[in-house]
């Protein structure tokens, strides 16, 4: 029941964005694409406890796969999204296989090395990816053969919103399934899970594949809506920023991922218009504040406040 209300809230917020900021739909579509990326990080970091600073590799894999397919004549948007998801899943499989060999710090370093390697590869294979100029000239066909992707980005935005809601519902089922519970158990205590007779590596790898598919969908959406794929979609900066968004919103809750993305990118849009370096100082200060004051992120803070509110009510009764 709570989840139905939450999803209605997401749709309502999305539609409110559509009506309130009709001139900024391109930005809002970008927010949705990044929100998918942040959701995918949440699956790995928040539910499995595997720290990663390389998630943009999966996002970029989806974006480039969709972009390359589009340049080569596949223009049906849903097919492109599927291609992006598939590419992301394959990249997730690869990344998971490498990353899960290590633990702790080495794991973090591996994730950084992988995203840098993807970055260099995309830069080098300029015949396919356009290199540092970016892959331009994507012309996407109309959705369902009816809805053209217009100049104002209305179709792209609504399409993105629908995708986000669908993915969100699917992920809600995934994280509350026995498989999702197993992942949480592994996050809490992998040794105990092993002792209970279940295998850790395949479970985590499966989550990596799911997460890769989600990130790939985000990448494909970004490629379709902006009609260009740049090298920044496989950058370390994007990975780090999206991890920051997740932590700002709160680890281990899907809502936290969405809230963090919207707040972070809204602030970024407002402040970086003034001076990008002020923006860096602000993000830095924000991060320090979150770590010191609200380790659970904004959603954790909210929960704390509502919990203490409940206690007071209980006390009065």
């Amino acid at each position: 029941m709570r989840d139905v209300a939450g999803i209605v809230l997401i749709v309502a917020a999305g539609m409110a964005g559509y009506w309130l900021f009709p001139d900024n739909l391109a930005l809002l579509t970008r927010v949705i694409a990044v929100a998918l990326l942040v959701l995918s990080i949440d699956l790995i970091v928040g539910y499995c406890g595997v720290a990663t600073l390389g998630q943009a590799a999966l996002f970029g894999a989806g974006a480039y796969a969709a972009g390359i397919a589009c340049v080569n004549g596949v223009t049906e948007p849903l097919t492109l999204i599927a291609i992006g998801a598939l590419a992301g899943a394959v990249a997730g499989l690869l990344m998971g296989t490498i990353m899960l060999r290590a633990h702790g710090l080495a794991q973090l370093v591996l994730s950084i090395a992988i995203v840098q390697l993807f970055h260099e590869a995309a830069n080098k294979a300029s015949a396919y990816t356009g290199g540092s100029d970016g892959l331009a000239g994507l012309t996407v066909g109309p959705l369902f053969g009816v809805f053209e992707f217009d100049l104002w980005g209305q179709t792209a935005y609504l399409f993105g919103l629908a995708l986000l809601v669908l993915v969100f519902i699917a992920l809600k089922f995934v994280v509350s399934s026995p498989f999702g519970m197993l992942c949480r158990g592994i996050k809490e205590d992998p040794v105990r899970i092993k002792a209970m007779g279940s295998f850790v590596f395949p479970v985590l790898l499966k989550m990596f594949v799911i997460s890769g598919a989600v990130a790939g969908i985000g990448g494909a959406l970004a490629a379709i809506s902006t009609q260009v794929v740049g090298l920044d979609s496989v950058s370390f900066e994007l990975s780090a920023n999206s991890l920051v968004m997740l932590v700002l919103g709160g680890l281990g809750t899907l809502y936290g991922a969405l809230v963090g993305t919207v707040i972070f990118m809204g602030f970024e849009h407002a402040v970086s218009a003034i001076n990008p370096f002020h923006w860096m100082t602000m993000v830095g200060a924000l991060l320090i504040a979150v770590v010191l004051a609200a380790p659970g992120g904004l959603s954790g803070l909210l929960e704390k406040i509502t919990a203490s509110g409940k206690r007071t009510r209980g006390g009065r009764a």
Partner: protein
Amino acid sequence: MQTILSIAIDAFAYGMALFIICIGLSLTMGLMRVVNLAHGAFAMIAGYIASYAARDLGLGYAIAIFLAIIGTIVISIPLERLLYRRIYGSPQLTQVLMTIGITFCVIGITNYFFGPTLKTIPLPGSLSQSVNVGFKTIAAHRLFVMACGVVVALGLWFLIEKTAFGIKLRATVDNAAMADALGVRTQVVYAVSFAIAIGLAALGGVVGAEFLPIEPYYALRYMVTFLVVVSVGGAGSIPGAVVACLLLGAVDTTGRYLMPEFGNFFFYAAVIAIVCVFPRGFFGRAQ
């Protein structure tokens, strides 16, 4: 043959510059268990101080290095007391986020005061000429960096293995509560080793400025490089850091000389291969 020699010399000098910076990070990570991604930010601060002292105030190179080290340590003390102390023993993700936050702040503030341009640290005449070492002429600055690296490595080894402070430090690392109970003032040990680590970052930032130029994004650009080197070498291990810096410096320099169009590709490919084979780094301890 000449090419191989110049690659080898450049690689060695670059590796040593990396080593001076990274060994400080290796100390904080291996001995104090803090993933300090802001390490590069301190090297950058030192570079700015040295540049200001040597270029704008016209002081000598040696004085500039000295001022940079002292200045950076002074800046780091309040940070250690107010921020780092709270994340000792926290999960790695928390430490990563906190130190990325510090890095961002340093970048923003540095740019506000010094502007986005590249800063140079003028070398004294004795270091900017070249020296004939028999088979080849080498820039004196390269030799100076190599000498600094060797001195730092030996000095640290002596400090940690042979002195009373080193014994206390190792005891604190192995079991802080027990060391505390035996009368070691662990808070002081932590503070001193943090200051040493920052001082080394400062030294490396200044003498390595020829290889890693000082600009506001320095902290972010090389953050990954430093972290990677430390984890390849194994956190807390001096020989590990030496091997990792020389090896990765060699891979990076060779790649840039022979196939510059590939950029950092070989560097990161080597890192993935090494970390897959040695998940704890070359000389990392089991945790």
